[in-house]
């Protein structure tokens, strides 16, 4: 037997509102530790290389997702790279309109096979193109704290 009666007055459709308070720590791991330390101390990108698959991971991983081998060959990549895709984001995390458009891109650093997800800066909307060459801009050394935000953004190489 299905529902014989339903709430049929809007104002009687009651609901209880709640929220879930969640706080977590997210361990960067062996590979992440090295990646962020290299950015913090030297303003350089470190990746891991799988010789078997001829694939370089940036951000690095200690295993190859293609052949499942353990990776311990570290290589330096970037800081220049090529934009593999870009988007102009116009909504904030909560879905409301952004005041300033946010340009996000997939950046394939020179020497890497994977891409890095980050912002583009100092670029006009009409200059944006897949294939454009960009370089990383890091925060001043003393402000770096071992996070992906130690990279301010990527800018066109000729900027």
């Amino acid at each position, binding site marked *: 037997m299905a529902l014989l009666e339903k709430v049929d007055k809007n104002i009687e459709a009651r609901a209880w509102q709640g929220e879930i308070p969640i706080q977590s720590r997210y361990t960067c791991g062996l590979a992440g530790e090295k990646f962020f330390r290299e950015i913090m101390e030297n303003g350089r990108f470190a990746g891991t290389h799988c010789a078997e698959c001829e694939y370089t991971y940036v951000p690095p991983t200690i295993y190859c997702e293609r052949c499942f081998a353990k990776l311990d060959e570290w290589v330096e990549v970037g800081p220049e790279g090529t934009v593999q895709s870009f988007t102009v984001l*116009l*909504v904030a995390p909560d879905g409301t309109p952004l005041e300033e458009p946010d340009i996000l891109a*997939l950046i394939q650093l020179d020497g890497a096979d994977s891409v890095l*997800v*980050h912002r583009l800066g100092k670029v006009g909307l009409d200059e944006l193109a897949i294939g454009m060459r960009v370089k990383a801009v890091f925060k001043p050394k003393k402000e770096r704290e071992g996070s992906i935000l130690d990279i301010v953004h990527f800018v066109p190489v000729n900027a």
Partner: protein
Amino acid sequence: MPKEVAIIGVGYAGFRALTPEVSYKELMYEAAVKAYEDAGVDPRRDIESFVTVAEDFTEGTSIFDEYVPDQLGAVLKPVHTISGEGLHGFIAAYLQVLTGAMDIVAVEAHSKASNILTPDEIMAFAMDPVYNRPLRANPHFIAGLEMNRYLCETGTTREQCALVVAKNKHNALYNPLAAYGASIAVEDVLESEMVSYPLSRLDMSPRADGAIVMVLAARERAEELSDIPIWIRGVGWCNDSFSLENRDWTNAIYAARAAEMAYRMAGIRTPWQELDFAEIDDTFSYKELQHMEALRLCRPGEAGLLVEDGATEIGGEFPVNPSGGSLGMGHLLDASGLARLLEVVLQLRGEAGQHQLSDVETGLAFGWRGLPTTSGAAVILSN
């Protein structure tokens, strides 16, 4: 693949933007009652096992699998929840019957999207906490990046994507279950508010509430209980690398691999000839095109041209999403794939009403788990 397992009952409730008059449990109960009635089974007596599909964060609780037995008639019975796409749950139910361990199994998926007050924040919470989440960007940027890459790589245009929206919303006008049927033009989509270039507001499927229950049975029970059993001929599922850094940004490789598995099982070599129609994920307009290519319903880069030619309309050579898809029916979160499959069942039974296709024998359903996943599942049915 011989006829081993069939769908003998389907039930559904909701399929509206809001369902304030019922709780999610009552929505599920209503869908379950209809499915059991349709199948001619008593859940307390006949159904041996239950599979549900849910994700804690969209439900707003922890350990949601504890919340499902009562409204399905599953108390004190084998029951488990799959945190995946609706079709993943369906395949799990199918496999239970295929092993011979169970004769009759029910599967359920639902969306109470209207109760979720921070949907984009939940989506953002699915991104990598170390490498991606600190950017504090609305996760729709991932669809923007992917769409831009897809358009650039295949030569597909924004206009062709907009045609998908117009087609699906038009199909939805003929589907009483669809919440977002509309007669709109390509320009409406192109001129709608930009969310993450080149993705506009109307390129995105709006959310809806709904619940779907299906009853599956082994051959002998199916033939005994049903006059129109719908046979499961092939299933497949696959995940690409989850990381934004390592996934394939051009091809929906998860869809290609999931479909290959299902085609192999069903003995299908040339899908566009051997299938009669398809209901595939269209969470975003370009996704329908990208998925068509991955599912080998056309050649790479050709999907946009087919839409332009009207080949995927209800009266076309190969109808895609005659139900209206998620763009026309509303996106049902993880129940979306099961909604696609529901339409395949109704079409194969000849019960699709005003949008019934003629002479259909075999159909494909494909579900994608949405942003930011690379998780897909395919099911092939025949009558």
